[in-house]
């Protein structure tokens, strides 16, 4: 598949050069890439789910490595893996249900029954249980448990092999094509979700913004913009303070657009956030990623704003699409999940070059320009996602709806399928 590999390489390059801006664009492109990977993946008759998972994993590792800070990539890869698993499982359970029904109703179909030696009613029940049971950290250990318990439950890519093979024997590949088709359908749906999550979040705006509210935001986020505009369109009148968000100054753009929409907008310097926060009713910001503990990786400066809001008991509301939910728990995210950008955003190149003569041994100068801040969960009042508002403490559970626990660790589980 040279064409797919080419696409992957191109995407990796873009990520490495940081030419894709924003988690939404990244997420969308990742999903599209994975879709083409899946559609080009030649599915063997045997264990096709494993083949798909392995292919996605291989690509996923590459693109995650290309920009480990952009958590949306990993999120989407995991989402796609989860989709494959789910689709596969639903196919299997469908088959089981069909089989179970046929087995119960007409006993004469012995041939087919012999083809599924491993699949007893217990297996069907287990598969059903697995779909219902929320993934948790326990599933990380389930490989061991399952093999120890000798239950033929398709709990991982490796285990599904036998079952897939047996399925294939019966259906001769039709189900295989169906799996791929279903997965691509589901990925399309995911892409659709990513492109339209703004609207779903913005729909909730009127529930959160009241008349004459004073809202503060920092930097620019498309989600925030749509959110505020949605409230404005519903005839709410309120005013917005926009902190400019140095060193990128995207707040200027946001302010201009908001003012063009007829909102009373005031641009303030970032340093004035503490001064102004006492007159603000609500802080509404976008996020870069939301971690499993409810912490937020956010554009730089938001920790300061969150602290100020906390001090003045101003609600700190984070808008995040579900593709920003990251199933990882952060450890030292200030450093490990951060990125240092070019000093030229702060100091002109050469501005201090006359002092940087290392020969004379005069003082040294470091310029620190980090891109992200970590806002701990206790400073966040509310998350508004496309599925509604949630507490930070609920994030871990929400994440379980989107990801399979088997995919949490991408690297340490190299393709175990075959």
């Amino acid at each position, binding site marked *: 598949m040279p064409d797919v590999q080419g696409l992957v390489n191109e995407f990796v390059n873009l990520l490495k050069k940081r030419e894709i801006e924003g988690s939404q664009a990244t997420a969308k492109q990742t999903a599209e890439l994975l879709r083409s990977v899946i559609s080009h993946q030649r599915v063997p008759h045997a264990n096709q789910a494993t083949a798909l998972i392995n292919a996605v994993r291989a690509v996923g590792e590459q693109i995650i490595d290309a920009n480990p800070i952009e958590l949306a990539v990993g999120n989407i890869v995991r989402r796609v893996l989860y989709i494959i698993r789910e689709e596969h499982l639903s196919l299997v359970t469908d088959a089981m249900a069909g089989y179970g029904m046929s087995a119960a109703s007409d006993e004469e179909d012995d041939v087919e029954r012999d083809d599924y030696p491993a699949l007893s009613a217990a297996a069907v029940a287990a598969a059903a249980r697995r779909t219902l049971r929320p993934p948790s950290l326990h599933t990380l250990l389930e490989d061991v448990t399952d093999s120890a318990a000798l239950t033929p439950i398709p709990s991982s890519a490796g285990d599904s092999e036998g079952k897939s093979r047996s399925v294939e024997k019966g259906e001769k590949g039709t189900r295989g094509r169906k799996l791929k088709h279903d997965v691509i359908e589901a990925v399309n749906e995911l892409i659709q979700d990513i492109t339209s999550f703004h609207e779903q979040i913005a729909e909730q705006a009127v529930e959160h913004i009241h008349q004459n509210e004073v809202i503060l935001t920092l930097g620019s986020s498309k989600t925030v913009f749509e959110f505020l505009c949605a409230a404005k369109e519903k005839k709410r009148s309120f*005013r917005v*303070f926009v902190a*400019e*968000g*140095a*060193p990128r*100054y995207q707040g*200027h*753009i946001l*302010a*201009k657009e*908001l*003012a*063009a929409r*007829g*909102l*009373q*907008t*005031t*641009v*303030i*310097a*970032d*340093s*004035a*956030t*503490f*001064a*102004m926060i*006492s*007159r603000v009713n609500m802080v509404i910001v976008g996020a870069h990623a939301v971690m499993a503990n409810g912490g937020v990786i956010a554009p*730089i*400066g938001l*920790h*300061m704003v969150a*602290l*100020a809001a906390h*001090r003045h008991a101003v609600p700190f509301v984070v808008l995040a699409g579900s593709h920003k939910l990251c199933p990882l728990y952060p450890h030292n995210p*200030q*450093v490990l999940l*951060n990125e240092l950008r070019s000093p030229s*955003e*702060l*100091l*002109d190149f050469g*501005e*201090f070059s006359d*002092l940087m003569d290392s020969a004379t*041994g*005069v*003082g*040294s*100068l*470091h*310029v*620190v*320009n*980090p891109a992200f*801040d970590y806002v701990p969960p206790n400073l966040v009042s509310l998350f508004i996602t496309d599925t509604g508002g949630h507490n930070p403490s609920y994030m871990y559970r929400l994440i379980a709806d989107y990801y399979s626990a088997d995919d949490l660790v991408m690297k340490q589980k190299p393709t175990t399928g075959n």
Partner: protein
Amino acid sequence: MEARRAPRAVIDPKVRRVGFFAPPDRSRSGPPDPISFDISPTANSLSPVMIPPPRHSSESLSLHARPAATSPSGEESVTAGSYSSSSEFFPAPMSPAPSSYSSRTIADDGDFFDSGKVASSFPRGGFDLTAMKASSVPASELTTGAVVNADSLAIREREKADKGGGSAVEVKDQALNAKQKKEKTTKAERRALQEAQRAAKAAAKAEGNKASGTLASVNVKPARAAKLPQKVDNASVAASEKKGGDRPQEKDRKKDVPQPRMQYDDKSRVDKAKRRAVVKQTEAKNRVELFRHLPQYEHGSQLPDLEAKFFQLGPVHPAVYKVGLQYLSGDISGGNARCIAMLQAFQEAIKDYRVPTEKTLVRDLTAKLSSYVSFLIECRPLSISMGNAIRFLKSRIAKLPLTLSESESKTSLQSDVERFINEKIILANKVIVKHAITKIRDGDVLLTYGSSSAVEMILLHAHELGKQFRVVVVDSRPRLRGKLLLRRLVEKGLRCTYTHINAVSYIMNEVTRVFLGASSVLSNGTVYSGVGTACVAMVAHAFRVPVLVCCEAYKFHERVQHDSICSNELGNPDIISTVQSREDVNHLEAWANTENLQLLNLIYDATPSDYVSMIITDYGMVPPTSVPVIVREYSREHVWI
């Protein structure tokens, strides 16, 4: 609007006069005039005269951050109610640029201290503030003689001997009050007289000016404007009824009484103020609603206008004029630098001052000074430190013994100013450095925000002592003063890290101490300082890093404040829209044409006292809760230095 103001004016002095003050003598006040009210807290406490409204409206141009207004002890009321006619212009020679300005004080980087010089000339031995003070005693001894001053002088001697003694305080305050009352009777009458005249004049003027319709009054609602002349008429009638008498018509006067800070949402007063202003200011187009009470003017237009007027014969002394222009253009910034430049300009003006015939020096000079101050306020609102310095100078003038000749008085005043600069600013800085240096250990990572002259001296001195430490300079838009500090530090060979204020949470992990400068420390412990200081202190507090605020005691003020909105200064909003050396950021170029878009450039913010671990001042290292103590001790003392 008026209704809102009146109660406040009455309440103010009551709130502040908590200490050892004799109850105000109200026996002399006649039945209060229903329409008149008293805006001057000090006058309220000491003089029972009711001042009719037009006075305030016409007087109010200079009232932003007027420290005299909040003087609890009331010395101000003697000096500030100035009565001289300003019909004559200042007879100073019109040398456009007085050569006595040392270029050092007006360094283009906005910092008055040539850091290298200061640091290297730093005395190795301990310096003794009290020794310095002792040496200053003879000079002030000159003032003995007048009966009125005799007892206060005696108290001063006692105070010197026993600083902080409670008994001395009481005696002194009583003496002061007694003295005030004595003077007040006549002053009160004359002031009322002046009110009548001014009201009449304002009424006459109002008619004329209304028609001309200045550009700036576009925002004034028609209804409001129409009401104005009528009100003035009423007031003037009332005032003239009250007094009846008349004095020779006086020309335009540029002086002020102590009163609450000017509130710029009071349109009638703003209009009045504008008419009297030297600096033509047009109101900004997109004003921030929340800050209507602060002046929001177009920036950039005044400077060329004023520069053109430089050679015209004006009431403002050229030295003061020059300083005003430098404030306006931003050539001088930073609390100490501005204060010193102003004091030196006043020194210059006093040197060239001649007492006009039939005037007394005390009154006329105070009036002159007030007019200068109001000019400076038009250029840029005063900082609190400048307000304190002006209060000091005025009290010195008021305390001049009548027996002194003109030249003696002038010499005395000039040396007073000199001593204020040396003792309260320069020496205080050195003492602060000496204290702060004990808090720097090897291996420390010190964070500072913006550019504070005191912090800079501390860092440089610590470096000279060979301490091993690293400095994190945090900077913020729009002023980017940290860059200037960074350059000076790197030049001296310090190891520096530079970042912007948004990244302060990122960098705070590695910081062990935060050193901050302050524009003022208010008596509830709030640190009033360059905008962003509160953010840095808050983040430091969240990361459990000690915050040390370095502030000279002359910047302390007895005002209280707990937010950054009620009293602040607004800078030029255009600076927000453009980013220095980032041409790609130009989204807000035409912001003034967008109706709903405002830009807000706050200059100061207020840091709550619980974020501050310690305040390093020339009186030692104190917790924020001790600030009111120092304010009281200090404000008593600085009357007499």
